[in-house]
């Protein structure tokens, strides 16, 4: 028995050290979140000491870089809202339709073939989508509306919105697919046995059951759209523009953040710090959306007792 006793003598200390290392590693993820929050918050507070917070959220003129620079972010929020709206108009029906097909209609064979293809769509870097939007989609939109006699901008909200929508399709379809499949089969069988068609079963039994999960997927897509940067930097405009016309150029929160930080501005000037104020808004909004999304999916999981989501 002696060798074992010898070997085990230092285990108490060693285990403690390893335990300590593991806890430290877990702390890093917490530090990161607070690092993101505080690094944005402190710079944003500095910005609001120089400029009025009230004008920032209600003002309609955004003109950095000039002597009497103004920082009213309403046109920027409006542009973000418009582009996100277009993106969701594309992504929700197509993403949801794809998810319904994959989970309800497709055979296992077809599903195994189609799902990896959608995953490729999800794996395409956003800079590539941005290039596609700027080089292929935007000129096509300009040409199309020109032939109708309507003027469209090369930096139209429509072009970046459509491409952003395509980017979000796999986000929505993948999570919705998982959720729809998690709805117990007994519900479908009961409905079919009562004489409902397959379409009626899906639309009035399966989808309502899966609704919390589907809404969660849509909110997740929405938060992705709000934070998306490369597509809008490459294909949308720089000009803050308060308009309802999706064919005009518009700008977004992320575009203005990039624009404020790329360049040789002084770090502590309001021009640069405005990026952090915009970043704070983005952080808070996406955080709230995210918390809603997570709590919805948790409710769904508890209701149907699934652990795979």
């Amino acid at each position, binding site marked *: 028995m002696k060798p074992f006793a010898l070997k085990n003598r230092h285990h108490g200390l060693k285990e403690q050290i390893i335990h300590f290392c593991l806890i430290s*590693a877990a702390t890093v993820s917490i530090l990161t*979140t607070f690092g993101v929050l505080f690094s944005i918050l402190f710079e944003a507070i500095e910005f609001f000491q120089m400029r009025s917070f009230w004008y920032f959220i209600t003002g309609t003129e955004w003109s950095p870089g000039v002597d009497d620079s103004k920082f009213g972010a309403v046109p920027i929020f409006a542009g973000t809202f418009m582009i996100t709206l277009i993106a969701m108009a594309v992504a929700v029906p197509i993403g949801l339709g794809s998810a319904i097909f994959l989970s309800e209609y497709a055979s296992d064979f077809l599903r195994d073939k189609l799902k990896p*293809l959608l995953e490729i769509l999800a794996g*395409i870097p956003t800079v590539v989508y941005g290039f596609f939007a700027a080089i292929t989609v935007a000129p096509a939109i300009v040409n199309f509306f020109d032939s109708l006699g309507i003027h469209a901008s090369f930096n139209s909200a429509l072009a970046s919105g459509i491409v952003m929508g395509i980017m979000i399709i796999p986000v929505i379809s993948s999570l919705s697919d998982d959720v729809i499949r998690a709805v117990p089969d007994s519900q479908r069988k009961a409905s079919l046995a009562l004489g409902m068609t*397959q379409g009626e079963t899906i639309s009035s039994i399966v989808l309502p059951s899966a609704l919390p999960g589907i809404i969660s997927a849509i909110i997740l897509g929405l938060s992705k759209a709000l934070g998306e940067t490369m597509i809008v930097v490459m294909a949308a405009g720089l000009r803050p523009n308060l308009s309802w016309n999706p064919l005009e150029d518009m700008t977004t929160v992320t575009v203005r953040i*990039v624009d404020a930080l790329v360049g040789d501005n002084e770090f502590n000037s309001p021009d640069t710090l405005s990026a*952090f104020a915009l970043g704070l808004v*983005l952080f808070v909004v996406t955080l709230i959306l995210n918390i809603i999304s997570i709590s919805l999916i948790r409710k769904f999981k508890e209701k149907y007792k699934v652990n795979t989501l």
Partner: protein
Amino acid sequence: MSNYSGSQASNPFYDPSLNKRHFKAKAFKSFSIAAIIFSISFLIFFLGDMVYKGLPAFQQSYIQIEVTYTEKTIAFTRKAIDRKYRKVVSRAWLRDIPKRVKANPELLGTTQMTWVLLNHQVDQYLKGHYYKVKAKDLKLIQAMQEQGKIELHFNKIFFTHGDSKIPENSGFKSAVVGSILTLLVTMVVAFPLGVMTAVYLEEFAEDNRWTQLVEVNINNLAAIPSILFGLLGLAVFIALFGMPRSSPLVGGLTLALMTLPIIIVSARAALRSVPDSIRQAGYGLGLTKVQVVQDHVLPLAFPGIMTGSIIGLSQAMGETAPLIIIGMIAFIPDAPSSIFESATVMPAQLFTWAGMPERAYVERTAAGIMLLISVLISLNTLAIYLRKRFEVKW
């Protein structure tokens, strides 16, 4: 009851709205089929568009003319070729004449028939794109073409050169090297941290408030827009710690924080899939908790952890926005040799090229996209292969 199915009137279960309901069901199905067809056909159209735009960049036009190598032409490289060709060949090729003579001293004092790189405008003309070439030069090119003295060769420059302000001389190499250095930093930081966090949460942590805080936090971290990590990198790594701007070190650390949640989530799933009987057997033989985890649970979960890490790696490889914020879009002609030098990465190079006015950069961007997407798809295929190959059904 042979006429049971045929006669609708005699069937007490017949519902007159049935046709309408069946039609609705069909419409619903068609809608879902249309949605998936749209998704897949977009993918095909998109990849096809990139290949169509990018494929020409893998070939570059060369012209066969006489080049004179003397002391004088090394000093004034324009004089090495006949005056009439000066407007059609590449400035970059002429600029490199002294380098070529240095590498090969026998050339000095000779005149050689050589394949000389043409400039990007002529190259675009030869590939049938929009071009700006004077009529006189165009005639010369057409004449040379008839003599078979103009050929498209494989574009080696694209793989051996860094970025350049002269389109025909620009390549992807410094971006590839920059990406490798950056991702090295990312994985060295994110992999151990991610796996350790996962091990802690799955194997050691008690279910208390602290653990719940960590869990909620990891979920949130995964959904923070990537551009905000760039703000963190700028405010903390560069402004606070004074790390060199535009360096793979800062870029790698920033991407590591973004990759962390992906690795943690997949590593936890992998650890959870190891059955408890393994752990209990270990304890039964008198092993300590650390020994059980280190020698039995981790090795069994390793393929799953690798799969998740590769997926995290491929996401980090395509990320651009945070790297732009920390300045990794600098003009980098030479590949960086350490993680402290200024560097650019593949997607950031694509972003820079996409913003260039010359048409020749469009095909280079598309070619770079082809390379990047091939690497990403291979990585994901590798991840799927690993998952299938080492998957254990308990």
